[in-house]
C-alpha cells in the first residue's frame, strides 16, 4: 500500500504572518510596510475601477465593518463559525491523536488502518459537503463533520510521524522501569510525538477554519461563510470584504496564539 506522506514535522511551518515571529525591528518595519502597500494598492485599484460593487475601497469596508459590529450581526456570525471550528477540531483531535499513537504501538492496527486512511485522504473536505448534507441535513452537524474531516488528516499524519520517531532507548528504559503498554503510550509515545502532534494541531486548526467557511457557503444559515454569500447576493460587496477580513484576522490569530502556547505545551523544548 502506498505510503502516507506525513507533512514535514518541522514546527516552523511557514505562515503568512511568520514575520511577526521574527522580533527584529526590521522584520516589523517591512512587515507593516507590506500590509500598508496592499491597502494602498487596493485603494488605488478601487478608485481606478470606480465601481464599489466590484471593488469597494478599504474605507467603505471600514464603514460597513462598524455597521455590522454595532448591529451585532458580525459577532453572531463569528461566534457561529468559531463554535463549529472548535467542535469539529476537537472531534478530529480526539480521534486522530489516540489513533495515531495506537497505530504506532500496535503493528496489527497499523496494517489495518493505514490502507483505509491512505484511500480516504485524497478526498478534499469540500467533497464531503454534499454527503454531509445528505446525512446530517443543513446546519450544525454537517459543518462539524466537514471541519472535523478537514482537521483530521493533518493531525493524524503529523502525530503518526512524530510517534514513529520514538527512540528505542526510551522505550527500553521505560520497560525496564516497569512501564506496561498503556504507560508506554502515555509517557513515552505521546511525549515523543508531542512536538509533531502540536504541529499537526496548528495545521489542522487552520484547515478546519478554512473548511468551516466553505461549509457555511453551502450548508448553513449562519456564520462568516453564510454572511459572505448572503451579501454577495444582495450586492453588498463591502460586507463581503468585511467577512473575508474577519476570516483572515481570526485565522492568523489562531496560528499566532498556538505559536505562543507552544512554550507552555513543550517546556522541554525551550532554552535549547
Amino acid at each position: 500500500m502506498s505510503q502516507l506522506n506525513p507533512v514535514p514535522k518541522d514546527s516552523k511551518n511557514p505562515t503568512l504572518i511568520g514575520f511577526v515571529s521574527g522580533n527584529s525591528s526590521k522584520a516589523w518595519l517591512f512587515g507593516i510596510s507590506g500590509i500598508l502597500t496592499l491597502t494602498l494598492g487596493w485603494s488605488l485599484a478601487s478608485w481606478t475601477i470606480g465601481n464599489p460593487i466590484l471593488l469597494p475601497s478599504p474605507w467603505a469596508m471600514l464603514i460597513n465593518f462598524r455597521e455590522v459590529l454595532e448591529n451585532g450581526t458580525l459577532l453572531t456570525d463569528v461566534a457561529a463559525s468559531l463554535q463549529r471550528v472548535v467542535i469539529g477540531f476537537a472531534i478530529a483531535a480526539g480521534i486522530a491523536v489516540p489513533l495515531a499513537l495506537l497505530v504506532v504501538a500496535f503493528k496489527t492496527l497499523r496494517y489495518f488502518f493505514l490502507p483505509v486512511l491512505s484511500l480516504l485522504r485524497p478526498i478534499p473536505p469540500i467533497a464531503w459537503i454534499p454527503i454531509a448534507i445528505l446525512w446530517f441535513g443543513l446546519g450544525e452537524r454537517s459543518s462539524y463533520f466537514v471541519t472535523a474531516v478537514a482537521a483530521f488528516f493533518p493531525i493524524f499524519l503529523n502525530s503518526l510521524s512524530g510517534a514513529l520517531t520514538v527512540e528505542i532507548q526510551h522505550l527500553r528504559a521505560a520497560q525496564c522501569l516497569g512501564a506496561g503498554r498503556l504507560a508506554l503510550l502515555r509517557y513515552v509515545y505521546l511525549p515523543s510525538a508531542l512536538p509533531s502532534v502540536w504541529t499537526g494541531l496548528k495545521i489542522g486548526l487552520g484547515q478546519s477554519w478554512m473548511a468551516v467557511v466553505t461549509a457555511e457557503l453551502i450548508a448553513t444559515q449562519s456564520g462568516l461563510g453564510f454572511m459572505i454569500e448572503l451579501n454577495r447576493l444582495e450586492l453588498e460587496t463591502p460586507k463581503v470584504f468585511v467577512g473575508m477580513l474577519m476570516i483572515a484576522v481570526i485565522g492568523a490569530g489562531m496560528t499566532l496564539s498556538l505559536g505562543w502556547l507552544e512554550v507552555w505545551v513543550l517546556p522541554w523544548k525551550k532554552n535549547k
Partner: protein
Amino acid sequence: MVSSGLRLNELSVRFGGPQGTIGLDRIGLEIKPGEFVVILGPSGCGKSTLLNVIAGFEKPTSGTVEVDGQPVLKPGPERAVVFQQHSLFPWMTALDNVAFGLKRLGKADAVDQARHYLGLVGLLEIAGKYPHQLSGGMQQRVGLARALAVEPKILLMDEPFGALDAQTRILMQEQLVKLWEEWRHTVVFVTHDIDEALYLADRVVVMGVKPNSVRGVFNIGIPRPRGREVRLNENYQQLYQELFNLIRQESLKSFKSGSEL
C-alpha cells in the same frame, strides 16, 4: 536490599533467524548474588547484546537467562538498566525521570523517594532541570539514580561512562563503587576499558570475537576499598597485562578481517 544470582545457560543469539550472523555463541555464566561482574571485550564481541538479552530487550535464539531460577522473559524493574547514551526522558525533569519507575511500582511517596536517590548521586539541586540542561556526567548520574530507585535485584550497566571525558569517568566510577559497597547488589557492567574493569569488578569476564563467546574469567582478588593507587598494585599490573594481551588478540582478529573498518 535483596540481591539475586544470575545464570546464563548456553545462550546464543543469531541476528536474522537461525541461520543468521552470530551475535552470541553459547555463553554460559553464573553470577553470585551481590557480585560485581564486568563483561570486558572489544567492540563487536556481543557484550551489549548480552546485556540486552539479560535485560529482556532481546530474545535469545537458544539458551536461557535465569534470575533466582526464574527464566527471564521480558524487561522488568528487578533488572534495571543504565544505558550507554543516557536515555533519560527529555520531556521530564531530572526528578520526574527518577520518580518514573517508582510511580510505575505504585509507590505513594514516589517523589520523595526520587529526591532521596537524586541526593545519593549528589544532584538534589538540579531536580527541576530538564536533561538537555545537564552535563553528560550529570545525565548519567540521573540515569544511575533512576535505575537504583526501583531497587533492582540486578543492576545492568551498558558502558555507562563510555561517552564521558576521562576525569568525569573516574569520578563516576568512584561514586558507583561507593554506592555499591553500601548496597552490595548484583551488578553486570559492560565495558571495553581494562582499567575500568579492574577498578570496579569482583570478577572480569572477557569476551572475544569469532566466535562471540567467553574467552576467560578472572577473579580480581584486589581488596576493597580500592583507592586510585590500586594501579600501582603488583597484582593489578599483572592482571592488566593478561587482560591487555587477551583483548589485543581479539581486537586484532576483527582488525585484520577489516570488519571494524
